[in-house]
């Protein structure tokens, strides 16, 4: 995994700021989005041990820098992803389905964070939160590599689905994540007038590195 601070990704759309358009959003939408910018909700669902493992898991799944790197180059804007997941689980805000071989989402999160911590102790002799970034990535990769095989009694693919759904839904609801993508967020009542390939609105910013295709750079 590359060691890029999230702040560096903002360089693709220099000066772009989704929130700068907030004055053009309808008040109901603005209320919904602005609520994500204030104090994150307090942790209510996870225990402190689960919080520690969960925070590290979210950071790794989202490619956030480790603590050392963060001290050196700064973090950019860090979204309180685990708090957002915790709030959903406390409120039982599910996706409206679960695999029949999985427990309820809240229980599944508790069980899988404990399992990840157990894996860390078995393999590295200390808890997941105390692992290095590389160790954490190794443990996470092992779960993904299992595919449909069992991991601590659960279908690994279904665990992976649970983690990525909750993490991505939380993170990509945040305006700072939109800034990284050049996505302007809410668009009512303003709408768009310049649609089409390579067409931009006055407030949209051209990608400064259009050839920065992640597939090409990884080949």
């Amino acid at each position, binding site marked *: 995994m590359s060691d890029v601070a999230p702040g560096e990704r903002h360089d693709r759309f220099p000066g772009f700021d989704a929130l700068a358009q907030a004055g053009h959003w*309808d008040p109901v939408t603005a209320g919904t989005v602005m609520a994500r910018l204030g104090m994150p909700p307090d942790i209510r669902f996870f225990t402190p041990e689960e919080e520690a493992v969960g925070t590290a898991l979210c950071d790794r799944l989202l490619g956030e820098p480790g603590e050392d790197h963060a001290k050196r180059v700064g973090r950019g804007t860090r979204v309180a992803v685990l708090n957002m997941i915790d709030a959903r689980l406390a409120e039982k805000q599910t996706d409206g389905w*679960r695999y029949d071989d999985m427990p309820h989402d809240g229980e599944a999160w508790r069980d899988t964070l404990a399992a990840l911590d157990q894996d860390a102790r078995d393999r590295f002799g200390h808890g997941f939160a105390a692992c290095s970034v590389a160790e954490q990535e190794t443990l*996470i990769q092992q779960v993904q590599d299992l595919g449909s095989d069992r991991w601590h009694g659960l279908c690994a693919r279904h665990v992976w689905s649970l983690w990525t759904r909750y993490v991505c839904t939380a993170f990509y609801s945040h305006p700072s994540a939109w800034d990284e993508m050049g996505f302007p967020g809410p668009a009512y009542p303003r709408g768009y007038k310049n649609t089409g390939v390579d067409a931009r609105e006055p407030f949209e910013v051209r990608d400064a590195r259009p050839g920065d295709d992640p597939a090409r750079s990884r080949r």
Partner: protein
Amino acid sequence: MSVRARNESAWLLPNDGTRTNHRLRRDMRTFADTDEVDLVVVGCGAGGSTMIQRLARAGWKVVALDAGPFWDPDADWVSDEAGSHHLYWTEPRLISGSDPVPLGSNNSGRGVGGSMVHYAGYTPRFHPSDFETLSRDGVGADWPLGYPDLKPYYEAIEGELPVAGEDWPWGDPHRYPHRPHPVGGNGEIFLRGAYALGIEAKVGPVAITNGRFGNRPHCIYRGFCLQGCKVNAKASPLITHIPDALAHGAEVRPDAMVTRVEIDQRSGRATGVHYVRDGRPRFQRAKVVAIAGYSIETPRLLLNSASPRFPDGLCNDFDQVGRYLMVQGAPQTAGRFDAEVRMYKAPPPEVSTEAFYETDPTKPYKRGFSIQTVSPLPITWAEHVAAQGHWGAALRDYMSDYVHWSCLGALCEFLPQAENRVILAEETDRYGMPVAHFAYSQCDNDTALMKAARTVMEDLLRAAGAGEVMTIDRFAHLVGGARMAAREKDGVVDADCRTFAVPNLYITDGSVLPTQGSANPALTIMALAARTAERLAARRTSVED
């Protein structure tokens, strides 16, 4: 007759920049539980709303109950993905099978307007072949009615939504009342790739006003069709049928969860529905009951309505309830361009092709698929990237590359299979009712179609100039689960959507469809409901009055 003369909904909406006619709702006629209404409808989506609009116009006393809210687009909907969670049916449900199908945001609505509040807006007709796949191709099932039976209702509903698109060359060729919309970046890429490969592709058909329609304004191309249209440009029954229904004396009773259909054990007739509102159990009496809860909740309600006469579930004498439930295979292919596509601008539904819809005798599989633009917003795009296996820095890099990607989706005609079904789980919801357990497994033909569609989409995007392409497997839509058949041993309802087992019980939603074609189901569900309503009105006029 002009659209306005037969359905005035668009003219009953406000024209002052707000989206809801509050006076119409405040002045709505209401019935008491003890009133024996002519018709009670369970579920206020595509099928249920069409039913009450038609029958209120015919002079019936009608009430529609919906488990969810009576939406006000101004106050209740947002131009935001995560903030739209309340649009989906999120009561507990279990999924299983070799190809478990996610529910919720993927295919399940709640509230007045149903899933059409958050559908993309594609409204293609079924092809004539869809009604006789068994005779023609030896797969699927034959309907007890044919395309000509539905055609006039397709035309009527297309006028009422109204549908915008180019002249349609596939199936039964036809035209649309509104001209095609201009396309955004994603549509442009689709058309470019299709042209390069010699594949015919067309703009539309989408139920989004192109130009003013009544008091509904023009689309503003903001791209949030799947989060509920705050503009009132995209059609849903909330704005296309409910206003006219209210103006003709129908009652819409929101936040009312129906738990059981009551059957008189002596006469075998339905007498009304049990429901819970504000925490209190209630019972609405009715002469006729129509269930329109869609493919998961309709079978669940029937199974939860067991009684001494129907020990295995209402209308389940032949073990048909919940079976032959279908989804469409919806592989999604994204292609990467150095140019900026910015697919979030313009509605996700733009361009489609039905060139691969029919059985091709040179292919090893039966039936086919359609291809359409889909334009995922960031959270849904993250699902695509994550499903590709990317996480960590790779996920973030792909996500920051969002503006360069174009995205197409196929709808593959999966075949009806008895074992793809809804049963009751042991788990109960907060009303104490067993929740639905939905099992799904693909057959070989399904899998072959997924592969073929993927190949065409990847070729198409490459022909348009894409560098990298990536495809994920998805599923879309729900139909079946209480299907229509010629004989009672093969289905739950007859060609008029009347249940074989209970003479005054109807099912008027997508669950009656015996096959699904490669078309989005909303228009067909509405057309079938319009036909059922017309026949119901005629039946009562001639028989009872």
